[in-house]
């Protein structure tokens, strides 16, 4: 949405979660697997995060992304604090 964000993708050697599990799960340390590639996104850009792969975002300055995902372990619901009511 704003700024610049790099996305690194890794094809995991071993699944870290049940394939039926929804949402994302945290990977501790470096993920074991084959590098899939790297994407650099700027304002208005959109990228695919493939299922059952590991991803990592890096940004050299404050940037904003909007993540389309499914509710899971990493979900934090803060709309009640953020929204005008």
């Amino acid at each position, binding site marked *: 949405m704003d700024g610049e964000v790099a996305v690194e993708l890794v094809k995991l050697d071993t699944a870290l979660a049940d394939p039926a599990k929804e949402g994302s799960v945290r990977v501790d340390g470096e993920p074991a697997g084959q590098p*899939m590639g790297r994407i650099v996104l700027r304002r208005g850009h*959109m990228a*695919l995060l493939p299922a059952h792969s590991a991803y990592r975002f890096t940004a050299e300055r404050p940037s904003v992304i909007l993540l*389309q995902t*499914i509710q899971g372990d990493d979900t934090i619901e803060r709309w009640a604090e953020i929204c005008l009511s």
Partner: protein
Amino acid sequence: MTDTAIPAVHASEPNAEGYREFTIGGFHFRRDEFFAHVTWPTGTHVMSIDGFLRALQRDVAWDFFYGTVNFDGVFGTVNHYGTVDMFAGRYNDSYRKAELDHFENFPTPEIRATFEAMLDDWTINGFDPFASPAETAKPFGVKTGSNTAAVTRRRVTASRMVGVPGDEAIRTDATHPINRMFADVPQDEPDVDAEPGFEDEVCAFNLFAYLSRSDVTWNPSVVSQCKASLYCPTTEEYILPIIHGNDRVEWFVQMSDQIIWDVQDRDTGAVRAKVTMKAGDVAAMPGDIRHQGYSPKRSMLLVWENASPELPELIRSGKTSVYPVDF
């Protein structure tokens, strides 16, 4: 009136203005030079043909969408995902109190065929119901040709994401020139460096550039899917031609410019809120409202839909809230 050979569509011969009249159940539809006339067993209604065709185009293209598509405060459809209610005055307090309201339920293929035939017959050469009023000819007058290519546009529905090999293609100058109001939108593409063998999975594109090349307005297109989560961005200009009645929560992210929303009670039309969204604003439309937007300049809006088929019943049964947030 005689039935044509079109299966399941009851259409007349052309009337004095050259347009066919259509009948489905107890509803009858007639157009003249300026208006659409709708009659049902307990009443009649008239709409500008401009607004009627713009609403009809959305109802057809979206296959009756999620929930209620109000053409205006009187006439519309409710999607039951397999069947569709056609109603007149059903969600209008005055019609209800006067007992003039009426609705009938039809199998989706039957009402779809009737609406498709009516849209094609009533849209004249040069008029594009999906286009901004500033970018199309007028719909008025006697029957002069048709615009079948415009009214049968294929809707963008990416199964993974636009730009992924085998999925919806990126727009280019050859197919979609940049819209006059988005001439300042950067057209740069992301840097994509895929390792060999992962070209189909390491993918990105410029969504804003893609939207800057949209040739339609108020037409959410699916650019990415994550199971039932659909990103449906759209470009808006002038007025949303329908009043959308929600059967689930809908999230809006205003990505450029500004839209003013009128929000009403879904079933009665009582005023609930006016929401002015500027670039960067996020809003959730509850599952029990109807809304209509006004976009003074062409703007980019991300409509974030939850397509889970069980949602309407979960809300009806009270198992899921019509609100996305508990304060």
